[in-house]
C-alpha cells in the first residue's frame, strides 16, 4: 500500500499538505477504510484554533465513531462544506475532494513529529 508522497502523516491517520503559510488536512484512506461507509462529519468552526494531536472533530460511520486529531496546529481558515451533504467523499477521495479543513500554520517545526509516506505505509501494514 502506498500513500501520496507529497503529504505528511500522523499516527492517528490524518494527513497534512503544506501550501506556503497554510496547510490542508484530512484523513487517510486507511482510516476511511477502517471506518466503513462514513455518514457524518463534525467539522471545526472557521476561526477555531487547532492544537497538534488534540481532538478537533468527529467522524461517524454506520458502525463506528472516531475522533479526529489535528496533525498540525493552526487557525482554521476554511472547512470543506461539501462534507456536510456528502460525507461519502471521505471514502471516495480522502486525499483530494475529501479534504477536511485548511489552516494557517502556527509552527512549521511540528512537521518533524509527522511521518512521511513510506513511514506511514510501514506503520499501517
Amino acid at each position, binding site marked *: 500500500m502506498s500513500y501520496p508522497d507529497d503529504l505528511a502523516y500522523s499516527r492517528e491517520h490524518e494527513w497534512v499538505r503544506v501550501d506556503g503559510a497554510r496547510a490542508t488536512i484530512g484523513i487517510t484512506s486507511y482510516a476511511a477504510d477502517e471506518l466503513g461507509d462514513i455518514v457524518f462529519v463534525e467539522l471545526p468552526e472557521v476561526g477555531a484554533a487547532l492544537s497538534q494531536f488534540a481532538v478537533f472533530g468527529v467522524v461517524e460511520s*454506520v*458502525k463506528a*465513531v472516531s475522533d479526529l486529531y489535528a496533525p498540525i496546529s493552526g487557525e482554521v481558515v476554511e472547512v470543506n462544506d461539501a462534507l456536510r451533504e456528502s460525507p461519502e467523499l471521505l471514502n471516495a477521495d480522502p486525499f483530494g475532494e475529501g479534504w477536511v479543513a485548511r489552516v494557517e500554520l502556527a509552527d512549521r517545526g511540528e512537521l518533524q513529529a509527522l511521518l512521511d509516506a513510506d513511514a506511514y505505509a510501514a506503520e499501517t501494514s
Partner: protein
Amino acid sequence: MTYSPHTDPDRERMLEAIGAATVDDLFADIPTSVRASDWDLPAPLTEQEVRTELARLAGRNRMPEVSFLGAGVYRHLIPAVVGEVIGRPEFATAYTPYQPEVSQGTLQSIYEFQSLICELTGMEVATASHYDGATATAEAALMACRLTRRSIIAVSAGVNPDYRRVLGTYCSGPGIEVVTVPIDLAEDGSGTTDLARAAEALGPDVACLVAAQPNFYGQVEPMAELADAAHAAGALLVAVVEPTSLAILQAPGDYGADLVAAEGQPLGVPMSFGGPYVGLMAAPMASVRQMPGRLVGATRDAAGRRGYVLTLQAREQHIRREKAASNICTNQALMALAATAYLSAVGPTGLREVAELSMTQARHLAAALEDAGLAERRFGGAYFAEVTMRLPDAARRHAALVEQGIVAGHLPERDDPALRDTVLLAATELTTDDDIARLVDALEAIR
C-alpha cells in the same frame, strides 16, 4: 415444571460428545471457595398449582368499584384489537431488530410509532421510546444541557412529583443543579407556573425550563409564555405533555417547545400497578445527534424494496460506549406497538372523543361536588380532565370511601403539605354519570 425439552438420554448424548462424565464437570472452573451453598427455594409447581398461586395473590387485591385516581396514570378503554396486536408472538417474542431482514414487522411498526408521536407533538423526530414519562423527562432535560452547554435545570412544581424526583436522581450523576419554580398556590390562584418566578430562575446558566401541560394538578399552563421566557434567557422549553390531551390542546411544537417528553400509558397500555409503560421523546431534527434512544429510519435494499433499519446507531452505547449520550439499551417496543395500535384504532375522531368525554366528565364531577356544597375547586382557571378540589378533612374522608370501594382520587398532600385537604380527581371516557353520583352520595353520607 421445567421448560427444557431434554431427557436424560439427550443429556447423555451431549455429555458424550463434550467428553465430560457428568454435568458437574462443566462447572469445574468455578473456584471452590465461591461455589454456591445450598439455597432454600420452593419446590416446582405444575401449571394448575402455579395458576392457583397467582390467583391467590390477585385475589388479595380489592379492585375499587369506582375510581377517580389519575395523577399520571389513567384508566382508559384499551380496545380489544390492541391486545390482539401485541399478543402476536412474532412481535412479543422477537428481539431488538439488529437483523433487519427478518425484523421488518418490528422496524416498520416503530417507524409508524415515531411518525405518530411527531404528528401528535408537532416535532420533527421522535425516538422509539424510553422506559416511562419520568425517565423521558430526565433524558430530555439532560439533552437540553448538552445542546446549550449549560448545567442548571429549572423545573416547574407543576410537573409530576415522581418525575421531579427521578430528574433529581438523574442529575446527581453529572452534577447538574435542579431549581424548582413554584406554581401559584394561592387559594383560587391559577395553580400554574409562576411566570415572574420562572423569569427570575432563568439565569444565564439555565439550560431549560421543564413544564407540564396539563400540569400535575390538572391545570392548563401558559406554555407559549413559558417558552418565550425560556428563549429570552437563551434556554430551551421542555414540555411534558399528556398524550390524549393533544387531540384538543395545541401541539408543543406550535407553541415553541424545544423538546417534548411524555408518558404514553394512556395510549392503550394497562395500568399494571406502575409498569411497564412507555416514555415518549420528541425533538427538532437539528438536534437528532444528541438524542438518546433508538431510532428507526427508512431505506431500500439492492432489489429496490422499501425497508426499515435501526439508524444513527453511532449515538448509542454499543458504539459510543463511554462517550454515549445515554446508556439506554432497551426501548419499550411492545408498549410502543400498543400505542401505535391504539392511535390507529381510535383515529383522530376517536382520540378527540376520548379527550372531550374526559373533559366533560371532569367538569360534570366538579360541578356536582360544588352544587352539593361538598367541595370547591382549589384553583381558578381552566383544567383539562383532572381537577384539584378543596375537601375538608380530605385524608380521613378518602380513607373512609376506600372502605366502600370508592377511590376519591389522589391526595396531593402526600407530596406537598401546602395542599393538605385537597383531592386530585381524574375523569376519563370510562367515568360514568353513575360513578359521579356514587361519589357525591358517599361524601354526603359522611358529611
